[in-house]
């Protein structure tokens, strides 16, 4: 992976996590918007899985993803071969910059001036919109949430519901200011206005860019999951369709898709299925009267092959991007998506982004968690997110002899003082005499124990040392 693709959000310093978290926690609007949305999503997810053997279904989801990853290079070659046979052009990009260049080159070859986009988190990762705009190509988001976020010149605060941080009033004002719609709290009116504006854009767009939810190797099929129909518009109306996808999205067979789809929509929004499940296997053929004449797929690595090297970190690549981990995360729910300053927020962002931007840049991400375990419990493909957070915490202080660090930027949080304290701690615990002496002295001088211990005691009291150590008490009892 090239060091230059270390994209976080433009103008956002990922390292400034704490001040942003502090501001978000004290912003009642953000707190209310996220609390309301996340409570609703959690309840809907629970209801959607009623009557299912959820553990067995999650096992199946995990096994399908592991099966795909265990054979990733072969599956990618099979996918490439099938897509090519079907008439779809396949491109490979080592990083986000290369993927952007590939998209631009396709646009330039077609003399395309405008691109309409369906929702794609990989394109956010690539920062494709800014790149195309810098090269004189208009890129317009068509998913309503993404459209709102683009009007506001912001980035998505949730991977499924990009504009969840805004309420109706804020969106109404934004649309009024940017597009001239009337001020209104009527969601139907606002939606209808967006429909009208975007239909014009669909008709005139030269190229449609979409993401991919699953790429099926056995048939060469690109699957897109959506409710609005903008994904279908994007992939059908313009004469050229470009799908961008991470290399980990490939699955062996269509059968696998039926299981992952059942997990994805229920985990994401508590829907039994989305309005549209769109399966694309070729450009327009012979007699067909609509659909793009050219379809391209850009397979984007951007750090994924580095994650793939390690047996434990590999589990990160199982993710099907449902967002359930963030919906259930006590930290995400309180600070919101923008606080993280990264393309993917919440628990999945905390285990994925350090690989994309480096642990030096993303040093605070693995620690922005109480390790409560909710993310791991709801993950539809059973990614052990808490374990991976602990692993990345070890990496950020360079691990130890048994756990050597591998992730780029590792050791960014290592301090010699802390390392020495822990070394001493380990030495003391391995030497019974020293241990007894140390705890005995600490118990004796417990009156000198400080009542404050940094930020930890802002909301807590320090536990007092007992007057006698456990060893002393056991000795007194004659045991």
């Amino acid at each position, binding site marked *: 992976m090239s060091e230059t693709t270390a994209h976080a959000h433009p103008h956002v310093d990922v390292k400034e996590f704490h001040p942003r978290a502090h501001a978000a926690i004290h912003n009642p609007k953000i707190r209310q*918007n996220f609390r309301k949305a996340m409570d609703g999503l959690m309840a809907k997810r629970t209801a959607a899985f009623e009557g299912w053997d959820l553990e067995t279904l999650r096992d*199946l989801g995990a096994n399908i993803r592991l099966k795909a990853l265990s054979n990733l290079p072969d599956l990618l070659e099979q996918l490439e071969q099938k897509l090519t046979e079907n008439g779809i052009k396949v491109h490979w990009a080592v990083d986000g910059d290369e993927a952007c260049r590939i998209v631009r080159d396709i646009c330039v070859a077609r003399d395309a001036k405008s691109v309409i986009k369906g929702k794609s988190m990989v394109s956010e990762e690539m920062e494709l919109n800014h790149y195309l705009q810098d090269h004189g190509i208009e890129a317009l988001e068509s998913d*309503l949430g993404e459209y709102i976020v683009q009007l506001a010149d912001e980035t998505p605060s949730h991977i499924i519901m990009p*504009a969840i941080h805004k309420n109706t009033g804020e969106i109404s004002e934004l649309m009024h200011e940017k597009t001239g719609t009337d001020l209104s709290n009527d*969601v139907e009116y606002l939606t209808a206005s967006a429909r009208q504006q975007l239909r014009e854009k669909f008709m005139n767009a030269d190229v449609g860019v979409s993401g991919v939810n699953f790429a099926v190797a056995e048939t060469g099929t690109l699957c897109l999951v959506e*409710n609005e129909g903008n994904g279908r518009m994007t992939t059908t109306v313009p004469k050229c369709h470009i799908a961008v996808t991470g290399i980990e999205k490939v699955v062996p067979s269509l059968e696998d898709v039926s299981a992952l789809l059942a997990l994805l929509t229920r985990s994401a929004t508590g829907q039994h299925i989305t309005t549209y499940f769109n*399966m694309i296997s070729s450009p327009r053929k*012979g007699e067909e009267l609509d*659909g793009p004449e050219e379809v391209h797929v850009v397979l984007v690595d951007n750090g994924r*092959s580095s994650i793939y090297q390690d047996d434990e970190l590999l589990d990160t690549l199982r993710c099907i991007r449902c967002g359930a981990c963030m919906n259930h995360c006590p930290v995400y729910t309180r600070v919101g998506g923008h606080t993280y300053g990264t393309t993917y927020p919440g628990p999945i962002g905390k285990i994925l982004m350090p690989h994309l931007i480096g642990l030096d840049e993303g040093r605070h991400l693995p620690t922005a968690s109480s390790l409560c375990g909710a993310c791991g419990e709801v993950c539809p493909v059973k990614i052990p997110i808490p374990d991976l957070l602990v692993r990345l915490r070890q990496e950020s202080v360079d691990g130890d002899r048994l756990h050597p660090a591998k992730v780029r930027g590792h050791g960014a949080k290592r301090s010699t003082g802390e390392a020495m304290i822990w070394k001493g701690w380990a030495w003391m615990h391995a030497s019974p005499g020293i241990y007894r002496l140390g705890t005995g002295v600490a118990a004796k001088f417990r009156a000198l124990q400080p009542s404050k211990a940094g930020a930890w005691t802002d909301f807590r009291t320090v536990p007092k040392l007992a007057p006698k150590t456990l060893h002393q008490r056991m000795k007194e009892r004659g045991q």
Partner: protein
Amino acid sequence: MSSRNIILQRLRNRTGGELTAPECDFSVLKRPDWSTAERIELFEKMIESVHGEVHHCTSDTWIERLAEVLNTRGARNLMIPKEHPIGQAIKASERTDLPELLLYDEPIESWQPYLFNEVDASITSTRGGIAETGSLILWPTPDEPRLMSLVPPVHIAVLNASEIYTTFHEAMISQNWASGMPTNALLISGPSKTADIEQTLAYGVHGPKELIVLVIE
């Protein structure tokens, strides 16, 4: 070296241990063997829960019901397939209470604004339904192109009750999808919708505002 080879080589030469593919047991997706009547009932319940509308008809009554559906909405026209028996039956009925009938028989480039701005409703066939999720299976063809079920504000779909499968998994296995996929295959479950503004549902954000299913029993 090309980016393709760089990526594939990195994946092939991974430093971790040998990866083995676990067994995948799909039996968790199985549902009881519901009767046709139960499948119809569940299909209806599920698609209505996402704002779809179901009408029960027979092969003798569906065109009459179609005319009612269109008239209550004041549709000025209806786009029908040219070759498919559905389109032929509508045309042959010569009913005077049907609106103007339109065909999608030219490449979209030559008449796109008309489709986007003037067509009020369309009717298409389906390749079956899925009871568990209340979904319609569509494989667009030159006779029933992709945009026919997407652009007009009202989409009417004809579904044979005998072709309602229990699950998506069952449908794709029964129809042997793995042997070859069409240019575009779709599952459609309700009209186009969004909840992107404060989680408030709104219909017809990009696609049809209404999805009406005529179930032929």
